[in-house]
């Protein structure tokens, strides 16, 4: 007689996450490249009012965070947004969201890598030379691919250390900057006109910098491991958006107080380095350079991993060929999915178009965020038997519909090229569904 064998899978995280750990995941996913790469570009476009642009982003993220929390407590699955929409709303929207999440993360990762290239080039003193930046960004893409196929242990712990380090550097730098701009230290800086370039750039800038908030829905993917999810999950999501939102807004305020928006625009992607240099000299510049390098590379890596997970989710639902989900014989890593993410990233890096990369990434995520809100309203309306969330988002259907409208609306303020590229991805995804996925019946779908 063959013995009984119990088979179990172990969660990747501690079995029960408290509120603090969940907040950490949210902050850790968001705090990264955006705050280091955007201040120069954003202030150059909207002046001091770029603070409002970052505020708009936070507001939209908050509007989506509440419905996402409700859906996550009803469907605590690691697929996150893709799972909610495919199970709650249907296979076609699910397939479109799944594919655009993959491609959106590819764009985000390419954006972070170009930012990484800028910071590395600045550290090497190579200036804003385009070829150097591209070469370093490409090298970064190759390195991350190799690391992720080779497999790592304990990189998650390293990630926590990096996030803690980033937060400390930022808080120290921003506190000093605030004291200085308020005139407590040194001479008070002359206040700049709040809206030097008119109202419209405030919104277009909001559309551009929204990339800085991507990933807050990530907290939803650990809904199954969170203690008291009905309370802790929404607090963690909303709290992490608020924390990073305050950091972003402060960063813009401090940067514009130090230099004025015209000078910041000239400094471009590495503007925060010069701001730090002006406050505390070479040591400050170095700290921000190192922080920028760590932030961009860890954001890029996290996006590659999320993309490979989105690919796995699609392939396990048979919306992509099964080969996409195979594991490497030697390393047990999802090498096909990693290559499906990093291959296009390398191509996009070659374009070197920071703003387009960031906007398309935001575009594709915003589509998902908007649909998350719509899914909530849809589920509340049909109220299927299986739908039993621990947390109920307030203000339905008005607030979720406002969230959906705001998410889709922000897309309208993007550059035409970004809109065209984003739309093509959506159409391509829908076309893929029609050609390949039409007969798919989703596992665990709640009909």
């Amino acid at each position, binding site marked *: 007689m063959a013995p*009984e064998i*119990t*088979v*179990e899978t172990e969660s990747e995280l501690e079995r029960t996450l408290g509120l603090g750990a969940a907040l950490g995941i949210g902050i850790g996913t968001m705090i990264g490249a955006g705050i280091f790469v955007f201040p120069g570009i954003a202030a150059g476009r909207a002046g001091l009012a770029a603070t409002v642009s970052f505020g708009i982003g936070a507001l939209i993220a908050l509007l989506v965070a509440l419905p996402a929390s409700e859906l996550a407590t009803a469907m605590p699955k690691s697929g996150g947004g893709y799972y909610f929409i495919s199970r709650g709303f249907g296979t076609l929207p699910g397939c479109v969201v799944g594919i655009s999440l993959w491609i959106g993360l590819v764009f985000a990762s390419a954006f972070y890598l170009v930012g990484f290239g800028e910071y590395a080039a600045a550290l090497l003193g190579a200036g804003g030379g385009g070829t150097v930046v591209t070469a370093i960004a490409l090298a970064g893409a190759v390195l991350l691919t190799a690391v992720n196929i080779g497999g790592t242990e304990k990189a998650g712990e390293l990630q926590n250390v990096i996030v803690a380090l980033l937060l400390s550097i930022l808080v120290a730098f921003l506190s000093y900057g605030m004291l200085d701009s308020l005139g407590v230290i040194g001479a008070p800086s002359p206040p700049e006109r709040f809206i030097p370039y008119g109202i419209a750039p405030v919104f277009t800038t909001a559309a551009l910098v929204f990339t800085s908030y991507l990933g807050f829905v990530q907290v939803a993917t650990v809904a199954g491991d969170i203690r008291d999810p009905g309370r802790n999950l929404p607090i963690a999501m909303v709290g992490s958006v608020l924390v990073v939102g305050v950091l972003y807004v402060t960063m813009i305020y401090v940067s514009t107080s130090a230099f004025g928006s015209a000078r910041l625009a000239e400094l471009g992607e590495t503007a925060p380095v010069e701001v730090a240099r002006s406050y505390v000299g070479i040591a400050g510049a170095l700290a921000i350079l190192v922080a920028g390098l760590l932030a961009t590379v860890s954001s890029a890596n996290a996006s590659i991993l999320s993309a490979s997970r989105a690919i796995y989710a699609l392939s*396990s639902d048979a919306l992509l060929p099964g080969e996409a989900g195979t594991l490497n014989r030697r390393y047990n890593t999802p090498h096909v999915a990693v290559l499906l993410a990093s291959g296009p990233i390398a191509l996009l890096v070659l374009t070197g178009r920071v703003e387009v990369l960031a906007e398309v990434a935001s575009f594709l995520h915003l589509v998902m965020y908007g649909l998350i809100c719509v899914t909530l309203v849809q589920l509340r309306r049909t109220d299927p038997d299986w739908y039993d969330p621990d947390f109920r988002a307030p203000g339905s259907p008005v607030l979720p519909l406002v969230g959906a409208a705001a998410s889709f609306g922000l897309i309208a303020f993007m550059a035409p090229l970004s809109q065209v590229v984003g739309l093509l991805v959506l159409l391509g995804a829908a076309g893929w569904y029609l050609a390949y996925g039409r007969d798919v019946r989703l596992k665990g779908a709640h009909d």
Partner: protein
Amino acid sequence: MSRPRVLVPVDVSSDPEPSPELLTLLEPFDVLLLGYFPIPEQTPVEQAREQREEEATARVETLAAPFVAEGRSIESMLVFTPDHEETIDRVRDQHETDAVLRPGPIERLERVLVPLHGDAALDRIVEFVVTLVREVTVGVTLVHVASEEEYRDESELLLRGARERLVERGLDPSLFELEVAIGERSVPRIAEIASTHDAVVIGEAAPSLRDLFVGDRPERLLQATSVPVFVVSRDQSDDEPGSP
């Protein structure tokens, strides 16, 4: 008294080598065989399970087969995990096993090393050694590491006391050898002595702040030696209430 239960974790991501000596070594115990499949962080656990469950289950079955053939009591489980150390600890606590065997190559089974540390786990170690030696006739070396030559007498006293307790439980005194080793750091000294033995029995360390940084003694010893090591579980009720 019921037979003690030993948790035997084995990495089943590649073909493990079955060892007949291991079968002998585990004869006095009920066995909980834990096949673990370590997963790199890049891989979703469900994905790994989907693709590797079949082969991993076959490996666990192969490992369990000789036990089943002899009609011995064995329970098997297979876990896909990103952190197998954590999994081993969890299974040990959940199933309240009396010891964990970290397998290593065994060529023969003649002498077992029992390093003593002069701590509270002594009762449980003695109990475990008694069960082991009663059924499997092996020589036992009791060793204590003293930090300096001048503490040799105290070490000998400790070792003799331990031997006395073992003999009182009906074990043959001629099985035991006592050895005092001198060294600043005990783990490397024990690892050195372990290399001339066929298995080691140690007690699980109580959690301490220092262990968070350097790893606890059993952990460090496991890294320093390749022989199989029984880590005797500490009594959960010894812990402070409310501690993890």
